[in-house]
């Protein structure tokens, strides 16, 4: 049997729960601080404006591109390489009195008429300012609804202390992932938002596997303290946690490297989220459940048998 990890005895995770909590609090405070100072580098989806991506035959000189655009009455254009030196992304803020959909065409015309050789239109995006606000609102709403639904589901399936623990862990993951995006000023667009919700799903997945074990062990082991039960459960599930995080990280790295520039933000958010999520399902979720006073008594009156018991027929 080939194993990544094998515990001879129960690892005492909860012994470090205090420093871990401080670490988490530090990370959250840090994230909130950078969020309050830098906020997020909102992508076009949320700010509104126009984005034009063009492909050049020759590697493009950004200074020349900027000069050309300045002449064409776009001095405020943000010009940068996107993916490779042949591709250039131009971003423009919404303008008063000018129809947004015209800007894209004008920028493209300006570049095609200048002396850059063949210039291909690869992508034009225009988002009106109101639409941007709506998208941001809907996105925030989605995360909040997701958290509430999960809280309800986990409360129904487990117990409110565990449910609170899992929601703390989720909030922890989201805040820290946002913090990293804020700190490095990575662009936050709709795909990143989707990734953030996927992080919620993934991190919860991890937490639930651990909680399921905790519940099982509470029922089986009458003599152990809650800390010992949690330690025991975490040790038992550790290799699974590591393997699943590992395989998910494999595919995400592959997505990051090969998936192209459009999907970078998505892969980045998920990679961060999975690192933080793996950590939080061990420390934040379990230790907050202990702080909330989870005990054997909370698990016993629930007569609901494991779902697996009566499901055997289909297996």
């Amino acid at each position: 049997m080939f194993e990544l990890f094998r515990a001879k005895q129960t690892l005492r995770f909860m012994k470090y729960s205090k420093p871990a909590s401080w670490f988490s609090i530090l990370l959250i405070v840090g994230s909130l601080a950078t969020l309050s100072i830098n906020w997020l580098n909102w992508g076009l989806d949320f700010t509104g404006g126009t984005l034009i991506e063009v492909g050049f035959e020759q590697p493009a000189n950004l200074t020349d591109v900027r000069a050309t655009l300045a002449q064409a009455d776009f001095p405020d254009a943000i010009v940068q390489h996107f993916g490779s030196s042949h591709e250039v992304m131009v971003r423009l803020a919404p303008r008063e009195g000018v129809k947004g959909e015209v800007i894209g065409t004008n920028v493209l015309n300006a570049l095609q008429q200048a002396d850059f050789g063949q210039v291909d239109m690869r992508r034009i995006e225009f988002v009106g300012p109101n639409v941007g606000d709506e998208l941001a609102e809907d996105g925030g709403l989605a995360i909040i609804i997701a958290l509430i639904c999960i809280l309800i589901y986990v409360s129904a399936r487990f117990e409110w202390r565990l449910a609170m623990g899992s929601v703390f862990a989720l909030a922890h993951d989201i805040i820290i992932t946002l913090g990293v995006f804020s700190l490095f000023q990575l662009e936050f667009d709709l795909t990143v938002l989707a990734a953030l919700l996927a992080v919620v799903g993934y991190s919860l997945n991890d937490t639930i596997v651990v909680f399921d074990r905790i519940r099982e062990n509470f029922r089986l082991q009458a003599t152990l303290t809650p800390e010992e039960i949690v330690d025991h459960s975490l040790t038992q599930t550790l290799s699974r946690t590591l393997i699943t995080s590992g395989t998910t990280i494999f595919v995400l790295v592959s997505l990051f490297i090969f998936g192209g520039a459009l999907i970078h933000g998505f892969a980045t958010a998920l990679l961060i989220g999975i690192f933080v999520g793996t950590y939080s399902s061990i420390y934040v979720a379990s230790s907050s459940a202990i702080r909330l006073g989870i005990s054997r008594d909370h698990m016993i009156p629930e007569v609901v048998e494991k779902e697996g018991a009566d499901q055997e027929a289909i297996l």
Partner: protein
Amino acid sequence: MLNKYPMWKYVLLGFIVLISLLYAAPNLYGEDPAIQVSATRGAKVELATLDKVQSILQQAGISPKSAALEDGQILVRLKSSEDQLVARENISSTLGDGFVTALNLAPSTPAWLEAIGGGPLKLGLDLRGGVHFLMEVDMDEAVVKAQEQMVQDLRSDLREEKIRFRGIRKDSGTTGVLLRFTDQNTLDKAVDFLKPRNAGFEFTDKVENDEYVLSIAMTELKLKAIKEDALQQNLSILRNRVNELGVAEPLVQRQGIDRIVVELPGIQDTARAKEILGATATLEFHPVDSVTDVNDALAGRLPSSSVIYKERNGRPVVVKKKIILTGNHIVDAQSSADEYGRPQVNISLDSKGGSKMSRFTKSNIGKPMATLFIEYLPTGKKKANGKLEIKKREEIANVATIQAQLGRSFRITGLDNAAEAHNLALLLRAGALIAPIQIVEERTIGPSLGEQNIDNGIKAMTYGMLAVILFMFVYYRKFGVVANTALLFNIVMIIGVMSMVPGATLTLPGIAGIVLTVGMAVDANVLIFERIREELRAGRSVQKAIHEGYANAFSTIADANITTLITAIILFAVGTGPIKGFAVTLAIGIATSMLTSIFGTRAIVNAVWGGRNNIKKLSI
């Protein structure tokens, strides 16, 4: 016996695998570059058209893979995309105006697969290239216009009825109109007169500064109807214009109360698309010149006061240049049936239009009147002075005989069928006052980027999957092979289900969702296998360990997946475009992975190891 599946479970599993393979199969056949010829107004695609297309191709030296007439459209499959471009150029210039020639990719799905509803995955705009527009109807403007209309109509109605009033104006800030009278008596008379004629309005009166003020406001219902009308009008106009563009599979769909989504896959020239969508249309009523013979006119003997226009079916009509009325006086036009069930179109004019119509028809009873539809379409070419060249397209929409003196509302009868009535009403409304529309969101993906996105997505998926498969094999040996088999079938199933579900489209984030599913799908197997290892370590027999491993892991897997499913559903509910694509693949991936990684792997494990009591060691 432990770990044995009854036969029916294998049959069921085999059936599911077969169905998935069957529906995933069309994706293997690829697509042919094709040209789609369809008819616009007047023209009809017939077998003769098909012959013509074939001869055009022959002249151009292109031999197509196939050319067929299906559902009133001609589909020509070609061998290369170079052929496609040349063919389109030739066909569209030879066939001329009545036909739309669109570039398309036609799936080369075999007929027997098509017969069971099979077809390849539908690709989102970010993968196939194209334009996505979100347009917003200016509802405030629509309401203001309706309000102005009310002021005009009420004023002329009261004057006609000789009810004296001091003043009339829009009630700014509300959706109503204020009328001022000198005494209560006149006010009451006005109310008695107006109320039965103006359903959908609320009447309230009060005394203010010695004046008797009547406020007439639209009810919520009326307001809603006005907004709905404005949206529907824009929707039908956009649909007509999109057909002009020659796009193979366009989408024009309302979104919410005031928005319209327009998606044009594969279109290259977006500037032209925007102009055509923004084209303006108008309408004119002309008297028909019944003195001049049509054949004489065609031969050039045309009085200077007349002009020839063509009807929709190509029939020429000689009309007088004199304009009775222009379309901006039309307030509304609805198709309906008269008391004998014959189709008709009811037209309402504003007060000015009503009096013009009344004056003209009074002395022209029994004479024919033509409705001319005029549309200004940019050709996409530029004139020498840098301005866009605009093409004026004129067409007689209808010729009707004037039966009586007409007023503000009248009807056009003598139409052939309900469809024609509906079309005419639509054209008439197109000339009416329309709430302005503007593009609030645009996403254009060039064709090269679309292709690159597909390549990137497939590459990312392949390498990610290879890494996972290799790891699972090294770590779990034979059981790893079982898990990998399930993983591969999971991908086939996702593709099969996505191809089967009509509304599902694959987007770039969708591919990311599948890649993510690959990473997370093995989680269920990891949970099960780790559990089996634990049971083995605890000293249970091989068969007991397998049984317990699956049983104990099940509820954990179910809980974990249901919560992820919740997030996927929420993403789908609030997300737009690409995000929806991600949510769809994520949700489908969760469902199929539960099936393959629990039911599927168990079936294999049971078949290979199950029930054999002589096994001492598992390759796990």
